């Protein structure tokens, strides 16, 4: 709405300045009226000068307006972003520690990932469609961010909510079909529960069928964690890879600024 109001103001101003007749009106600016009084008569070169002057003034004024609007908009967006970060910090997810096995059988704790930006996703390998979709999305985000050499490498993590079936071997088979840097994490049901609780992840295995197969209902969110291990943002199914990459990029840029 602000934009259209500003646009209308600019257009009206432009119209006013360019179409002002030579007679003095109640809304004439003193500068123009003076010039008009001094240069009476059908003199074409002075008419051109008048027009050029008006154009220049209009452009400068319009430029100034546009510049101010742009600046104010950027400030507002930056404020929005900082506010959101503050709110999410208050939520304080991911404050605890976790100790899990990666898909190669090595023990990993949260400490191992400090110093990297992390995109974290909880899921399970028997997931019909959502987890592969989300992991494909994360892979796309990481690949897009990798292209920008000025940004640090992002570490994608996949933590299982189905430790009964998703052992190290199962994870190994699963993660290799996504981004090469994706690390799968599993452990005992207790260890996995601790990790999930830290991010308030809801996970509920459904009823088993005669094959013993079941679907785990779970929170579908991608969490962004900064190099200090602080939870900064989350992305749901509605966000596509381009939007997520943009958001991560913005977080990385603000992070650098704060630590300077």
């Amino acid at each position, binding site marked *: 709405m602000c934009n259209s109001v500003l646009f209308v103001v600019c257009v009206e101003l432009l119209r006013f300045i360019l179409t002002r007749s030579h007679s003095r009106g109640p809304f004439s600016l003193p500068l123009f009226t003076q010039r008009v009084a001094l240069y009476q008569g059908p003199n074409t070169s002075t008419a051109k000068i008048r027009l050029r002057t008006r154009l220049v003034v209009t452009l400068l004024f319009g430029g100034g307006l546009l510049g101010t609007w742009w600046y104010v908009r950027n400030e507002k967006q930056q404020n929005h972003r900082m506010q959101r970060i503050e709110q999410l910090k208050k939520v304080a997810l991911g404050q605890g520690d976790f100790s899990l096995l990666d898909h190669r059988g090595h023990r990993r704790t949260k400490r191992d990932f400090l110093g990297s930006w992390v995109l974290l996703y909880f899921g399970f390998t028997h997931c019909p*469609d959502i987890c592969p979709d989300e992991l494909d999305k994360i892979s796309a985000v990481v690949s897009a961010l990798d292209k920008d050499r000025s940004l640090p490498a992002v570490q994608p993590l996949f933590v299982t909510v189905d430790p009964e079936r998703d052992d190290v071997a*199962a994870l190994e*088979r699963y993660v290799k079909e996504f981004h090469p840097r994706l690390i799968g994490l599993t452990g005992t049901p207790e260890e996995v529960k601790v990790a999930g609780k830290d991010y308030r992840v809801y996970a509920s295995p459904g009823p088993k069928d005669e094959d013993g197969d079941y679907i785990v209902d779970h929170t579908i969110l991608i969490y962004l964690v900064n190099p200090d291990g602080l939870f900064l943002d989350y992305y749901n199914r509605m966000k596509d890879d381009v939007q997520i990459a943009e958001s991560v990029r913005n977080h990385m840029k603000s992070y650098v600024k704060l630590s300077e």
Partner: protein
Amino acid sequence: MSAPDSNQRKACWGTRDELWKCLDYNQDNATSCEKFQKEFEASCPAQWVKYFTKRRDFLKYKEKMQTEGFEPAAGPKASQS
């Protein structure tokens, strides 16, 4: 029973999409799409068949709500005082 790999997933999704296309074309008449139903059940784990069937029901319901509107169920009557 290990989880389906990427190729198996894609095969399952393919037969599911074929089935759904057939159902859309035949106004959800299941008997016209028996062939696709069998293919779908053959390429997907039983749990996934159940899941996708439920999903389709949900999507149809959502579509109905969005096009036809929604009648809220009558709640408890407000007190007179």
